[in-house]
């Protein structure tokens, strides 16, 4: 049985390696294992998920300096990090935009923005634009909640932060907080995927 299972896993990985580009482009679904990465932060230091030894999970958030939705959510992203870092679920922000196409998303501007706002979390550069397509991020901001398990980091939630970008005080449902709370208490996540308007990720590919 174990042998069969191992073979199935092998077959699955073989198939995924040979899958068409289109399938890969779709990115992760709920329950998929998310890739780790080694991406430079605003000071050039490489950061990986594996660096966070005590983490129970991660809030990987694709975001940037320029998108009005990203800006509208900056304070709430900081608040998420402050609230959940101590509970073992830190925010890892990744800027996926190509600075040649969006100059104000280059690392200098990232540095400036992180300083001005007092980002409490790593703000990484998807230099080769290889990570966001694997996750399937299409826009900023785009949140992926991962749960660390012994077999890898499992995608538990994909979507937006809450149900009102324009006014934090009018929010009725905090999708991300609900998802993290449920994950941490071992309960079923009430809503695993949500959608919101965002800025398309700037890529030449």
């Amino acid at each position, binding site marked *: 049985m174990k042998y069969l299972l191992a073979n199935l896993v092998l077959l699955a990985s073989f198939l995924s390696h040979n899958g068409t580009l289109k399938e890969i482009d779709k990115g992760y679904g709920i329950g998929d294992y998310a890739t780790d990465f080694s991406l430079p932060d605003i000071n050039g230091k490489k950061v990986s998920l594996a660096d966070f030894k005590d983490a129970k999970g991660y809030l990987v958030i694709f975001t940037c300096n320029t998108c009005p939705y990203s800006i509208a959510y900056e304070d709430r992203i900081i608040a998420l990090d402050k609230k959940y870092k101590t509970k073992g679920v830190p925010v890892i922000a990744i800027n996926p935009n190509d600075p040649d196409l969006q100059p104000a998303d280059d690392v200098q501007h990232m540095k400036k923005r992180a300083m001005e706002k007092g980002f409490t979390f790593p703000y990484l550069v998807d230099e080769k634009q290889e990570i966001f397509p694997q996750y399937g991020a299409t826009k900023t901001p785009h949140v992926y909640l991962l749960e660390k398990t012994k077999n890898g980091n499992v995608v538990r939630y994909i979507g937006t932060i809450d*149900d009102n970008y324009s006014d934090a005080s009018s929010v009725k449902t905090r999708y991300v907080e609900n998802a993290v709370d449920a994950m941490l208490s071992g309960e079923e996540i009430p809503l695993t995927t949500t*959608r919101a308007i965002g800025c398309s990720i700037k890529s030449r590919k």
Partner: protein
Amino acid sequence: MIRSVLLLCILVLAGCDFKEREKATSANSEFVETELAPADSLGIPVYKFDELEPLLNKKDDKIYIINFWATWCAPCIKELPYFEKINREGEAHNWKVILVSLDMPSMWKTKLIPFIKNKNLKAEVVVLDDPDQNSWIPKIDKDWSGAIPATLIYSRNKRKFYEQTFTYDMLNKELQEFQN
């Protein structure tokens, strides 16, 4: 004299070329010749999703091209002239473009209205202001992630959604499919 005025006009117009003006939202100084008195009210409809929905489900003989955009969205601004051109050609082909702006309320008077005037947009513009986006995005298309630009093309018996940017030729090609 007349010739030089004409030449000046052409030069000024050429300066307004959309293609050179991807970051069109801020700098308006080149548009003096089309500067109009500031609108004291918006002058365009602002909808919640249930008010927009009828525009996405008309049952007449036209083909509707619904483009979701915003003044802050550079790729949207880049493709807007193609939608304008398609709209101009719409009478002959029985189609119509509706531009659904997702600009935020703070940008309506400062960015959106000046943009519409400066670019002299002829296609119908409506604003969609409905923050509970997760409730309505799947109703527009089940696969739309929410990234803009995005476009819906529909007729009475065909419907297609595109989470992508368009060129004029691509739009034309799609519309030909709708006409067949």
